[in-house]
């Protein structure tokens, strides 16, 4: 067996999938080739290292909360920004670029494909934690919240933490729309209104 033959057998060796003949041949090669022996040890060690990684413990209360949300329904929820940013740094970078170019209009725009449920990720920035703020969302015509039937408006009390508060809002567009999604955030006598223009992405529809 040559070293390049060994390389092609490595996955099967790791998985214990070699038949007796190939196993014997591989073992003989490993006995006389220090490079392939190191390669094999490295492959075993990397796989062990990956297997030994364990996730941080489940947050207390997550299980009850998650099951309750599933069975009773819930309002859209905030998502921790750090976790999202770790996984989607490039997306965030693109978003910042888009934000800068559209800033003079003060109304952001997203393009959604007709009849395809899509998640719009909205970021609310707050300079300090806000307890029991009231968040209201009102939809333009031809846009629906996924999972809320015919409801055009949602309003609920929520806490915002300092910094970015990310919300994933599942929406579905049923046809062309002229108005904007309006999000109002009120707290302790002051309020802010945000607007989001929703356009129909014809290219996305054609690509389906």
């Amino acid at each position, binding site marked *: 067996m040559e070293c390049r033959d060994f390389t092609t057998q490595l996955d099967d060796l790791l998985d214990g999938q070699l038949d007796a003949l190939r196993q014997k041949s591989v073992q003989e090669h490993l006995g006389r080739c220090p490079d392939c022996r190191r390669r094999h040890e490295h492959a075993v060690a990397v796989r062990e290292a990956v297997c030994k990684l364990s996730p941080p413990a489940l947050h207390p209360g997550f299980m009850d909360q998650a099951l309750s949300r599933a069975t009773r329904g819930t309002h859209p929820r905030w998502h921790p920004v750090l976790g999202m940013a770790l996984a989607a740094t490039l997306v965030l970078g693109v978003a910042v670029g888009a934000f800068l170019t559209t800033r003079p209009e003060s109304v952001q725009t997203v393009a959604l494909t007709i009849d395809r449920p899509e998640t719009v990720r909205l970021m609310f920035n707050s300079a300090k934690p806000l307890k029991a703020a009231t968040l209201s969302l009102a939809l333009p015509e031809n846009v629906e919240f996924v999972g809320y039937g015919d409801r055009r408006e949602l309003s609920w009390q929520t806490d915002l933490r300092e910094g970015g508060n990310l919300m994933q809002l599942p929406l579905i567009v049923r046809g062309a729309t002229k108005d904007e999604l309006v999000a109002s955030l009120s707290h302790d006598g002051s309020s*802010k209104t945000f*607007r989001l223009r929703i356009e129909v992405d014809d290219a996305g529809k054609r690509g389906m």
Partner: protein
Amino acid sequence: MPPVSPFRRTRAATSQYRRARPAALNFEDLLRPQVEYLYRLAWRFTGSVADAEDLVQDVLIKLYPRTRELLEIERLRPWLARVLYHQYVDSVRQRARSPIVELVADAEGEDNPLDALPAMKDGPEERAERSGQRERILAALRRLNPEQRAVVAMHDVEGYSLEELATMLETPLGTLKSRLHRARERLRALLPMEPFSAGERVKQ
């Protein structure tokens, strides 16, 4: 959402009693023992606690209306793993199409706490994860594409055979072999030899 056929038990095997119970009770009975497993697998897919929790939550929300169907599933865990996998791949694709929209207020406000954007701060978990070999391995896994990470998680870690995965994920065996080969090759390239040689392996 995948079809249920490979895992479905016969209807007679589902007791009359269970079918007559409220859906929420059945759902909790079926899913509560699986949430930790789903979270663990989701974390291996995403590499992030927040994203793993989101993924599990989204799967639970999607499955609840299908509680009666879940009662018919003979081998629930691999079926759930498949649902989680599809949700994960869909969410990655959806995220790529859906950049974050940073909302800008209508009116100018003065001293309004909603105006400012403080710098992001590292939490203890993020700091801890950035240190040492654990972070190096996580960073290497993040460099794989979603399908490669999933096959590593489900085959190398969770122990599903490639043949099982081919059925579960309805993906040709050759495709899975190729994904696994590339994933392992990439991990080895990203995690150089020295700290991973025999006798000096990662300790938790």
